């Protein structure tokens, strides 16, 4: 029983990291209609930055903050490449984000090499009802919860957040009232970078990050985002938690090498179900 609870709690932490990646995907897709396949890259950039900054002797907190900001800049640059030119279709932008992801490999290998890097996080563990959970996992859960609350407040309460929602709701009407939809799209990309960056700095102490870790991150994040039809952040969060728990259970009960397959399998099932319901995949990305 305690093993089950342990897998459940650790799975929730893994799910939270996936949820942050997914929320970035959803934010960008809602505002721009673009599926951003460079989303995992933002987490990798932030993770590698944290590792370097901590290695250079910068303190915790500052290193993580700087790394998250670097990821936001990476998000903005990706946005400029993907939607900077007027009239680019969402499908063309999607291909550009794939290209940005590949380009990022080259840049990351030049800057950080091809070996995985880690960073120290919160040490120790706590015992909850007989189950051990790493303190870093609790941090992941706490930060993710706070991030989602802040995101909800930003989109629901602030004028800028509402303008972003307006662009998602009716881009033509947004232009009618004078909102620069392209600029809002760039803001969404920066926000997506920020969210990916938060995921990156949280995950790096748990599993070493290398230039190609983005594949695992984007597959999981995309699976969760598709669960929310690429437009509903709360359902994507739920999907991410489910995925995190499913993967951790699979690993815990002896199928550790098949974690990614679990994500891929779930994603395919969800996509087939969503496609049957005339989902985002056919309607909103085209």
């Amino acid at each position: 029983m305690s093993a089950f609870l342990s897998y459940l709690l650790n799975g929730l932490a893994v799910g939270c990291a996936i949820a942050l990646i997914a929320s970035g995907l959803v934010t960008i897709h809602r505002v721009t209609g673009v599926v951003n396949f460079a989303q995992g890259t933002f987490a990798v950039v932030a993770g590698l930055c944290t590792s370097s900054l901590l290695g250079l002797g910068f303190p915790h907190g500052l290193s993580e903050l700087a790394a998250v900001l670097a990821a936001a800049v990476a998000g903005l640059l990706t946005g400029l490449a993907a939607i900077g030119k007027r009239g680019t279709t969402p499908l063309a932008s999607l291909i550009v984000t794939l290209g940005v992801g590949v380009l990022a490999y080259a840049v990351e290998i030049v800057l950080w090499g091809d070996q995985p890097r880690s960073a120290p996080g919160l040490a120790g563990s706590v015992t909850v009802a007989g189950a051990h959970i790493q303190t870093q996992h609790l941090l992941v859960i706490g930060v993710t919860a706070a991030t989602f609350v802040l995101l909800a407040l930003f989109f629901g309460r602030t004028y800028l957040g509402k303008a972003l929602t307006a662009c998602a709701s009716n881009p033509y009407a947004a232009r009618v009232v004078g909102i620069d939809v392209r600029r809002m799209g760039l803001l969404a990309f920066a926000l997506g970078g920020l969210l990916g960056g938060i995921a990156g700095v949280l995950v790096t102490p748990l599993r070493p990050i290398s230039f190609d870790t983005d594949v695992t991150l984007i597959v999981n994040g995309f699976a969760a985002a598709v669960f929310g039809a690429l437009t509903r952040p709360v359902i994507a969060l739920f999907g991410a938690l489910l995925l995190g728990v499913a993967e951790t259970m699979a690993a815990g009960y002896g199928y550790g090498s098949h974690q990614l397959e679990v994500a891929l399998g779930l994603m395919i099932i969800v996509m087939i179900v969503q496609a049957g319901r005339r989902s985002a995949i056919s309607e909103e990305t085209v």
Partner: protein
Amino acid sequence: MIEVQDLVVSYGTATALDHLTLTVGEGEMVALLGPNGAGKSTLANTLAGIIAPASGTVRIGGRLALIPEGRQLFPDLSVADNLALGGWRSGLRDPSSVYELLPRLAELAGRRAGVLSGGEQQMVAFGRAMMSRPEVLVVDELSLGLAPGVTADLAAHLAELNRSQGLAVLLIEQNARLAFELCSRAYVLESGRLVTEGACAELADDPRVAAAYLGGAVT
């Protein structure tokens, strides 16, 4: 307020507006009539800066707001949020001046715009446009899909704003009766070209206009 000179707008190889020249003076209410596909909405979008002209000039002499065809609200946002976003350009965030003008909107403030009736939605679109404190208002199909009573109510508000604040209006309409009632001058657009223009009183007597837009001679 609006000066359009020799305007050409194309979509690929198709020409939507073909050397159009048109003016709306200060405090004037001018109608633009024409059938579907004449290029009326293209002109509205060009005036609002959403479509770029291929050639010709567009001069706007003050703040312009557009009430687009089909209302085009933000369906997921509340009425209050829709109005607040209407003030994006003007910096006006508080909709109370619009609530004074259209008290019904104050009652609907917390409702989602997407669930309102057509008439209520048109009222929100009207209020949202007024949030930008316009000096000239382009109204694309005020009466489309609305009950006559609702249209008359909104038209009365337009006329009142024109009288009291000198708001210039370009009223794009298929309903020529309404247009002639409200406006002093009118243009008639067909296939992207102006076919006739003049004082509404004269146009109403023009047998061609009467046949096409008034369902026969005006009695």
